[in-house]
C-alpha cells in the first residue's frame, strides 16, 4: 500500500486501469481525467495486474463506447469505461443488454447533473438515478479513499455475481477533491479480485471453438419467463459486495458495509443519505450526538440491488423520524428514488404481514433534496434537517440549501454551525487562472501530505475561460480531513491579485484574527491606503493580520513571467507556520524539482530563485488604529457592497440589475427560486453589462496611421473593436479625447470615421495588432524623448483610462450605425461597419472560433437562428451569468439554443422544418386574405426576392405594414381565425437564416451521423464547423479532426490516422454547398463562403480553421497571438486548402495557391506537433513524412477536381 495525495478520479482509475484489459472511453466532464490517465498510462506501457497493457480506445460517443465495451466483454476481456451525465444516458440501451446477459463489468461514473432547464457540469446524482432501472448494480463512494476501494469492491463483486456495476461518486466534490489515499498494490488487487473468476469470464466469451447464440429475439411465449431468470443473481449481490468489503477490511483495516451507521446508538432522528454528503451528515451527527442529541446517519453504499435487510440492520430500532436525502430531482414523482426505496423497505418491514414479523413500528419518513449541481451541503444544513425532524409535524418533502419561495419547500437552517476540528488549518486562496495559484496549492497539499499531515484541497473555477478567477480551499491537520464542503472561516486567506480584495466575499471567508496575504504592486507603505473601503472595514472588524508582497515583481525578476505561484506558495508557508521554515523551504524546492524537473533545469532554477526571493519581498502591513470605521455594516454590508460593485448600469433591464447582478457579485447562492426563469429562458445580450477589465493592456487606435481597412475588427475574438462613420458635425458633442479621422472613402465627403475599442471588454490578445497591415514604425515614447523607439502600428496594445473609455463608448453608441443596405458586405472593409450581435464572450483571449461567430452575427444577425452543439461555443455562448449573443438597436438579433452534444444537426434541422412550415402557413393565409390586406402589398410580399440586404430591408418594411394592417383587421373583426393565424406567423415572411454551429468533436465524431443525415436532407440549413481539431472544451482530447502526428489527450502517442476529409464527404452528395475557410489566411474567401452558404437554398457546410489554446502556440510569450499567422501557414503549407464547392454550378474551386511552405513551417510552430518529436522522434519523423505525403496526395486530388467539368460532379437533384 502506498499513501498518496490524489483526487477521486485518479483514485478510481488507479484501480480500474489495473484491473481491466480494455478501456472504452469518451471525454465528458468531470470524468475525463479518468480516461486521460488511462490513455496516458497505456501509451507508456504501464501493465495491469493480469500482465498485459490495457488497450484504451476512444470512441465517437458514449454510445459508441458502450457498444465497444459490450463487444469486448462478449469477447472475454475485462472492460471498463468512465463517464458522467448525458454520456451515461447514451449508454443506457447497451446497459440493459450487458446486464441482461449477466456480463460482469464496472462503469466508473463521476456523477453529474443532467442538462434540463440548463446544462451543468457539476455534481449530483441525476445521471446515475437515470440508470437505476437498467439492471446494473450501483455502488456509491463518498470520498477519495472510497473511490479507490469501492472501485475494487465493485470489480470483485461484479465478477463474483456476473452482474455489471455502476461505481459512482460525486462529480467535482469527490472526483476533483485532493485528499490522502492509500493505494492498493498490484498484489493486493490480485488477492481481492479472484483470477478464477476472470478465467470464468473468459470462458463465457463468444468463441467459434464453442459457438453459441447470444442476443436472440424472443416472443410472448418466453420473454417474460426469461426476464425472471436473473433474480437469484440479484439476490446474491448484497452478500457478494459485503464479502468483497470484508476481504478489503482484513487486508487494509478499512471497514465498509452496504449501509453504515454513524451517530447516537439510540438515535431517534436519522438521516439516510449517500455520496459525499454522507460524510458531512455523519460528522455533524457525531458532533450533535456528542452534545446529547439522539441523532444519527445511515450512509448508503450499495443502492442497487437495494439491500433492505442491510438498511434495517443499520437503522437503530429507536429511530422514529427519518429524513431520506436525494441529490437529484424527479419532477412529478411521489418522491425521489432513495426516499421511495427506504420508504418501501420500512413499510414492508413494519407491515403486519411481514415475516419474520413486525418487530418495528413504522417511523415517520420524509424526503428531501439537497446539493443539486454541487450546491453546498454543510453541517448547518444537516442540523437544520435534524431540527425539522424534531418539529411536531416535519415537512414530508423538503429542500435544503436554497430559498424556495415558490413552492415553500426549503427548510431554514443556521449556516454558522462549525463542527470542524480546531487542529485543522483552513486556508482559502483567491487567484487568477493564469497565475498558477491552483497548481501551487496542489503542490502545497502534496508537500504537507508527504510531511505526514493530512491534507485536503478543493478548487472552484470560473465560468469564463479568459481572465478567469479561481478559489482554492485547503485544509491540513494531524487527523484525516473529511469535510466535503467549502471553507467558510479560514485562518489564512491568500489574495493573489490586488483587485480581488475589493470583492466582499473574499475577506468574508476570513475567520476573526486570520492572516491575509495580499499580492499587490503597491509599495509597503502605501498598501493600506490602496485598499478599498470594504476590505479595510473587514480587516479592522475581524482584526485580521495583513501581509503584502509584490509577487509579480519577484516572479518577473526570477524569469517566471506572470506565474506568481511559487512566490506566493513560499509566502504561505512562511506566514502560516504549517511547517517550520527550515523544513518548508527544502520541501518546496523538492516539490519544484518533482513537478518541474521534466521541464528542464532552467525552469527548476528559476522557480528556486523565486523561492529564495519571496521571503525577502514579504512584509507585514501596519494596520492603523483598531477602530472599525463608522458605518461598517458587518458581513451583510460587505455583501451589499459586492452587489453595488457589480456596477450594473441603471438603464439595464431589471432582470440584469437584480438577478444577473447577484450572480456577478458572487451571491447567486442567495437568489430565491422565484428569481429564476422556470423554463431556462434568459435575456439576450447580457455580457455587455459585465465590464470585466481583465487586461491591463488593450487595443489602442492610432487614427493618424489607420487606413480604415477593417482587418483588426475582422479578427477580434471579443468584438471589442467597432467602426462607424457619421456626419462630421456630430463630433461637436463628442467628449474630450474621443478619437476620429476623416472617412477614407470616395463618394462620402464630410464624414468622419471612428474605430472604438471597448477597452473594458478587451482581453489584450493582440490578434488585431498582428492583423494590422500598416507597416511597423518606430515611435519615440512621448514621455521620454530619445529613450529609444517602440514599434508602432495603427493598432497597438497599450494602457487605458476607464473613465475616458466609458465616456467614449457612451458617445460612440449615440452615433448612427451604417445603413446595412449601403454597406459592401463583400469586403472586409465593408463588413467592419456591420454591428456584431455576438460580443464580449468569455472565450479564451485570442480564441480562433469567436471571430467566425461574430462575423456570422454581423452578416445575418437580425434573422439568425443558431443551433449550437455542446462544446466551447455553447459554453462561451451560453454560460451564465452573462451571455454574448445580443440584439441590434431594433431589438432583433440571433435566437440561440443548445440542445445536446450529439444531436445538434438534427436540432437545427428542426428549426428549419418549423420555419418552413410556418412560412407555408403564412403564405397560405396571406393568399386567403389578399383582398382584405391589399393586393399590392400581398403580391409584393409573396413575390419578394430575399437575397440582398436591401431586399431584406424592403421585405421587413412590408411585413411591418402587413402586421399593422392585420391588427386593424383584427380590431374590426375580433377573433377572425385566419387573421390571428397570420399574425402569429407573419414574422416568417422575412427569410430566416438557420445555422447549425459546433466544434469538430460534434461534427466529426459524436454528431457525425446526424450531420450526415441533415446534409443529405436537402433542406436549407447552414452548418458552421469551428474546427479546432480537438475537443477543446473538455481539455484537448483527440477527435477524428485531429491531424496525423499531433499529440492530444487520448492520442498521447501521436495521432496515427489522418484527419477525416469532411468536405469531400459532403461534396459527394452533390447537393451540399461546401467550403473550407481560414480567416487568417484569406478573410475575403471566408466572407464569400459564409455569404454563398447562406444564400444557397439547400444544405451548406462551412469548415472553419480555428486556432486553439490546445495547439500550443504563442508569439512573444503571448498565447495565441500568432493564431491568424498559423492559419496562414496552415493554408500556405497545403495542410488546409481553401475550397468552395457550389452545387448549383457544380464547380469545385480551389481558392488557395499551391503549397509554398514546407509542412514543418506550420507544424514546427505548434507544441502539439513538437511533443512527439521530444518523446518519440522516430515515430514523429515517420508521421511527419506521411503527413507530407498525405498533403501531396490530397492536393493532387483537389487540383484534379478543380479541373473537372460540372458533368463529373453529381447533380443536386440526383439527375445525371
Amino acid at each position, binding site marked *: 500500500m502506498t499513501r498518496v495525495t490524489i483526487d477521486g478520479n485518479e483514485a478510481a482509475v488507479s484501480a480500474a486501469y489495473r484491473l481491466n484489459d480494455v478501456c472504452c472511453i469518451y471525454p465528458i466532464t468531470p470524468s475525463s*481525467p479518468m480516461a486521460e490517465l488511462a490513455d496516458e498510462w497505456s501509451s507508456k506501457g504501464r501493465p495491469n495486474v493480469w500482465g498485459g497493457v490495457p488497450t484504451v480506445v476512444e470512441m465517437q460517443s458514449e454510445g459508441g463506447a458502450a457498444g465497444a465495451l459490450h463487444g469486448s466483454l462478449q469477447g472475454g476481456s475485462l472492460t471498463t469505461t468512465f463517464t458522467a451525465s448525458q454520456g451515461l444516458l447514451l449508454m443506457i440501451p447497451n446497459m440493459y443488454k450487458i446486464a441482461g446477459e449477466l456480463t460482469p463489468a464496472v462503469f466508473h461514473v463521476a456523477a453529474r447533473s443532467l442538462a434540463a432547464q440548463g446544462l451543468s457540469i457539476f455534481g449530483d446524482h441525476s445521471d446515475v438515478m437515470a440508470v437505476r432501472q437498467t439492471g446494473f448494480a450501483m455502488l456509491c463512494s463518498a470520498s477519495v479513499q472510497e473511490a479507490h476501494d469501492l472501485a475494487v469492491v465493485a470489480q470483485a463483486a461484479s465478477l463474483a455475481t456476473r452482474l455489471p456495476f455502476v461505481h459512482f461518486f460525486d462529480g467535482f466534490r469527490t472526483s476533483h477533491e485532493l485528499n490522502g489515499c492509500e493505494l492498493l498494490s498490484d498484489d493486493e488487487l490480485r488477492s481481492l479480485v479472484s483470477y478464477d473468476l476472470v478465467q470464468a469470464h473468459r470462458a463465457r466469451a463468444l468463441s467459434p471453438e464453442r459457438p453459441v447464440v447470444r442476443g436472440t429475439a424472443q416472443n410472448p411465449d418466453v420473454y417474460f419467463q426469461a426476464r425472471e431468470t436473473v433474480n437469484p443473481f440479484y439476490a446474491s449481490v448484497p452478500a457478494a459486495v459485503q464479502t468483497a468489503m470484508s476481504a478489503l477490511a482484513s487486508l487494509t483495516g478499512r471497514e465498509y458495509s452496504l449501509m453504515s451507521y454513524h451517530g447516537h446508538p439510540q438515535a431517534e432522528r436519522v438521516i439516510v443519505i449517500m455520496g459525499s454528503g454522507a460524510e458531512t451528515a455523519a460528522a455533524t451527527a457525531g458532533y450533535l450526538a456528542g452534545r446529547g442529541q439522539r441523532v444519527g446517519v445511515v450512509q448508503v453504499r450499495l443502492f442497487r440491488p437495494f439491500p433492505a435487510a442491510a438498511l434495517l440492520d443499520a437503522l437503530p430500532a429507536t429511530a422514529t423520524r427519518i429524513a431520506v436525502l436525494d441529490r437529484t430531482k424527479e419532477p412529478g414523482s411521489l418522491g425521489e428514488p432513495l426516499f421511495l426505496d427506504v420508504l418501501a423497505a420500512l413499510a414492508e418491514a413494519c407491515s403486519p404481514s411481514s415475516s419474520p414479523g413486525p418487530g418495528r413500528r413504522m417511523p415517520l419518513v420524509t424526503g428531501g433534496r439537497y446539493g443539486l449541481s454541487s450546491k453546498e451541503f454543510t453541517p448547518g444544513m444537516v442540523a437544520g434537517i435534524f431540527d425539522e425532524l424534531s418539529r411536531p409535524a416535519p415537512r414530508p418533502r423538503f429542500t435544503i440549501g436554497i430559498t424556495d419561495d415558490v413552492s415553500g419547500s426549503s427548510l431554514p437552517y443556521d449556516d454558522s454551525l462549525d463542527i470542524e476540528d480546531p487542529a485543522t488549518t483552513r486556508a482559502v486562496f483567491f487567484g487568477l487562472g493564469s497565475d498558477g495559484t491552483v*497548481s501551487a496549492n496542489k503542490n502545497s497539499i502534496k508537500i504537507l501530505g508527504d510531511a505526514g499531515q493530512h491534507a485536503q484541497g478543493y478548487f472552484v473555477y*470560473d465560468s469564463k475561460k479568459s481572465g478567469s478567477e479561481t478559489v482554492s480551499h485547503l485544509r491540513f491537520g494531524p487527523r484525516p480531513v473529511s469535510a466535503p464542503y467549502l471553507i467558510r472561516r479560514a485562518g489564512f486567506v491568500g489574495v493573489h491579485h490586488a483587485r480581488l480584495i475589493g470583492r466582499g466575499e473574499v475577506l468574508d471567508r476570513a475567520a476573526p484574527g486570520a492572516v491575509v496575504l495580499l499580492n499587490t504592486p503597491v509599495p509597503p507603505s502605501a498598501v493600506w491606503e490602496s485598499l478599498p473601503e470594504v476590505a479595510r472595514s473587514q480587516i479592522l472588524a475581524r482584526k485580521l493580520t495583513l501581509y503584502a508582497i509584490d509577487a509579480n515583481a519577484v516572479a518577473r525578476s526570477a524569469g517566471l513571467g506572470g506565474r506568481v505561484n511559487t512566490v506566493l506558495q513560499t509566502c504561505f508557508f512562511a506566514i502560516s507556520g504549517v511547517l517550520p521554515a527550515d523544513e518548508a523551504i527544502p520541501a518546496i524546492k523538492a516539490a519544484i524539482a518533482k513537478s518541474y524537473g*521534466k*521541464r*528542464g*533545469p532552467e525552469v527548476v532554477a528559476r522557480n528556486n530563485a523565486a523561492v529564495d526571493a519571496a521571503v525577502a519581498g514579504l512584509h507585514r502591513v501596519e494596520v492603523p488604529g483598531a477602530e472599525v470605521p463608522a458605518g461598517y455594516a458587518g458581513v451583510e454590508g460587505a455583501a451589499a457592497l459586492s452587489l453595488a460593485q457589480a456596477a450594473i448600469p441603471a438603464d439595464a433591464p431589471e432582470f440584469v440589475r437584480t438577478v444577473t447582478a447577484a450572480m456577478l457579485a458572487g451571491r447567486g447562492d442567495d437568489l430565491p427560486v422565484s428569481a429564476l426563469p422556470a423554463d431556462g429562458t434568459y435575456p439576450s445580450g447580457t455580457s455587455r453589462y459585465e465590464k470585466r477589465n481583465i487586461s491591463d493592456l488593450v487595443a489602442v487606435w492610432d487614427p493618424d496611421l489607420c487606413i480604415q481597412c477593417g482587418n483588426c475588427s475582422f479578427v477580434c475574438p471579443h468584438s471589442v473593436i467597432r467602426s462607424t462613420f457619421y456626419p462630421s458635425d456630430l463630433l461637436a458633442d463628442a467628449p474630450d479625447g474621443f478619437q476620429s479621422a476623416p472617412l477614407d472613402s470616395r463618394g462620402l465627403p464630410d464624414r468622419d470615421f471612428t474605430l472604438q475599442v471597448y477597452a473594458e471588454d478587451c482581453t489584450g490578445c493582440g490578434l488585431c495588432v498582428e492583423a494590422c497591415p500598416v507597416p511597423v514604425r518606430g515611435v519615440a515614447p512621448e514621455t521620454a524623448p530619445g529613450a529609444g*523607439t517602440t514599434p508602432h502600428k495603427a493598432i497597438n496594445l497599450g494602457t487605458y483610462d476607464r473613465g475616458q473609455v466609458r465616456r467614449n463608448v457612451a458617445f460612440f453608441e449615440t452615433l448612427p450605425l451604417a445603413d446595412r443596405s449601403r454597406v459592401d458586405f463583400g469586403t472586409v472593409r465593408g463588413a467592419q461597419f456591420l454591428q456584431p450581435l455576438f460580443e464580449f464572450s468569455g472565450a479564451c483571449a485570442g480564441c480562433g472560433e469567436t471571430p467566425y461567430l461574430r462575423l456570422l452575427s454581423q452578416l445575418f444577425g437580425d434573422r439568425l437562428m443558431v443551433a449550437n452543439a455542446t462544446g466551447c461555443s455553447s459554453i462561451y455562448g451560453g454560460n451564465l451569468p452573462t451571455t454574448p449573443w445580443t440584439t441590434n438597436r431594433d431589438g432583433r438579433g440571433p435566437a440561440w439554443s443548445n440542445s445536446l452534444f450529439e444531436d445538434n444537426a438534427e436540432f437545427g434541422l428542426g428549426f428549419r422544418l418549423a420555419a418552413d412550415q410556418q412560412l407555408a402557413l403564412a403564405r397560405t393565409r396571406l393568399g386567403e386574405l389578399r383582398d382584405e390586406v391589399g393586393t399590392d402589398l400581398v403580391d409584393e410580399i409573396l413575390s419578394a426576392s430575399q437575397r440582398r440586404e436591401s431586399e431584406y430591408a424592403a421585405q421587413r418594411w412590408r411585413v411591418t405594414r402587413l402586421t399593422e394592417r392585420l391588427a386593424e383587421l383584427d380590431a374590426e373583426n375580433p377573433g377572425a381565425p385566419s387573421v390571428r393565424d397570420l399574425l402569429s406567423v407573419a414574422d416568417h415572411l422575412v427569410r430566416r437564416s438557420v445555422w447549425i454551429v459546433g466544434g469538430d468533436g460534434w461534427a466529426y465524431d459524436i454528431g457525425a451521423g446526424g450531420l450526415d443525415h441533415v446534409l443529405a436532407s436537402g433542406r436549407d440549413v447552414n452548418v458552421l464547423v469551428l474546427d479546432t481539431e480537438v475537443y477543446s472544451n473538455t481539455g484537448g482530447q483527440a477527435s477524428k479532426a485531429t491531424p496525423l502526428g499531433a499529440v492530444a489527450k487520448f492520442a498521447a502517442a501521436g495521432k496515427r490516422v489522418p484527419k477525416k476529409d469532411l468536405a469531400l464527404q459532403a461534396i459527394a452528395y452533390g447537393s451540399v454547398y461546401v467550403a473550407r475557410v481560414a480567416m487568417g489566411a484569406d478573410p475575403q474567401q471566408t466572407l464569400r463562403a459564409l455569404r454563398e452558404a447562406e444564400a444557397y437554398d439547400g444544405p451548406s457546410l462551412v469548415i472553419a480553421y480555428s486556432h486553439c489554446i490546445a495547439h500550443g502556440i504563442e508569439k512573444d510569450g503571448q498565447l495565441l497571438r500568432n493564431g491568424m499567422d498559423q492559419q496562414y501557414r496552415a493554408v500556405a503549407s497545403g495542410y488546409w486548402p481553401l475550397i468552395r464547392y457550389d452545387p448549383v454550378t457544380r464547380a469545385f474551386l480551389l481558392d488557395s495557391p499551391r503549397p509554398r511552405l514546407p509542412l514543418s513551417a506550420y507544424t514546427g510552430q505548434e507544441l502539439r506537433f*513538437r511533443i512527439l518529436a521530444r518523446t518519440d522522434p*522516430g515515430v514523429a519523423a515517420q508521421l511527419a513524412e506521411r503527413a507530407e505525403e498525405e498533403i501531396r496526395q490530397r492536393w493532387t486530388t483537389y487540383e484534379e477536381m478543380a479541373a473537372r467539368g460540372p458533368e463529373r460532379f453529381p447533380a443536386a437533384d440526383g439527375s445525371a
Partner: protein
Amino acid sequence: MDLSTRYLGLTLRNPLVASAGPVTSTADGVRKLADAGVGAVVLPSLFEEQLNHQATRDSYLASAGTESFGEALSYLPGAEFDPWPHQYLHLIEQATAAAGAGVPVIASLNGVSPGGWTDYATAMQEAGAAAIELNIYYLPGDPLIPARDAERRYTEILISVKAAVRIPVAVKIGPYFSSPGEMATLLDRAGADGLVLFNRFLQTDINPETFTVSRGFRLSSPGESSLPRAWISLLHGKVDCSLAATTGVERAADVAAYLLAGADVVMTTSALLRHGPAYAADLLDGLAGWMHRKGFTSVTELRGLLSAEAGLAVPGRTGYLSAIEQATHAFGSAQLSS
C-alpha cells in the same frame, strides 16, 4: 587513384566532408551525400542554449490555460519538456544507418554549460557518432573579459569532453584570436584530435529603413577561403592533430588548394546547398581529374605540398607589402579607367 585520407584517426575514402548544414540535418540528406561519395558528414550543431530555450517555451505552452476552467484543467497530455536532445540522438542513429559503414558520421555540439558539454557528448557517443566536433561559439560580450580567460574556456571544454568520451574530438574555432596559431597549438596539446578552421560567426545586419536588426546567414564564397587556407598552411606540420578546412569551397580547385595547403579534409556546405548533394560527386570527379592531370596518385602525395610557401604569406611583412602593391596595380588602374 587513392583519394583516401586520415581524419581524427579515422580512415576516410576521400577528403571531401559535408559540413554541418541543412543537407546533413536529415537522414535522407545524409544518404544522398553518401551516395554522392563524400568521405564523411558532420551533422548540424546541437545548440544546448536552443534546447533550453525550447524546453522553457514548451513548458510554458504546456501549462498555458491550465487550472483555470473546470472542464479543462489542462490542454495537452502530460509530456516531458526536459532539454534532452532525443531528436538529435535519433538523427545520429538514422544518419549513421543512412551513411553506411564507410562514411563516418560526426556529431557537432555547441554547449553552454559544463554539464551540457560532457553529458551531450557522451550521449552522442552512445548514439553511435564516429566523432564529435565541438563548435565552440563563444563571443565574450563583456568587453572587459581578458583574452586568456576566453581562451582558457576553449581548452577547458575540450579537456572535459575528452575525459568523458572515447571517440575522437575535433574543435571548430574562429579566426578571432590575438594569436590563432597559439590557440591551435594549445588545443592540440590539450588533446584535440582535429581542428576545423574556421567557424563563420553569424553577424547582425541593421536595416536603416525598417529599424530592424536581422541575424542573417550567408553562404560562403571562394573569396573567403584565403584566411583559413593560410592558417592551415601555417599549422600543417606544426600540430599533431588533423586539420580540416572549411569555408569557400565551390569548385574542385578549391578542394585541391586546401589539400595543397595541408588540410587533411576539406569541408563544404555552401556548394552542396547551391548545387544539391549530388554535387559532391562532381567535386570528387574534379579532384580526381586534376590529380590525374598533375600526376598525383594519392592524396597523401600532395597534402601540404605548398604549405611552406602559402603559410609564409600570412605573417610575413614582405608578402603583405607585395599584396598591397598588387592590389594598387589592379584596382587603381580600374578606377582610372572608369
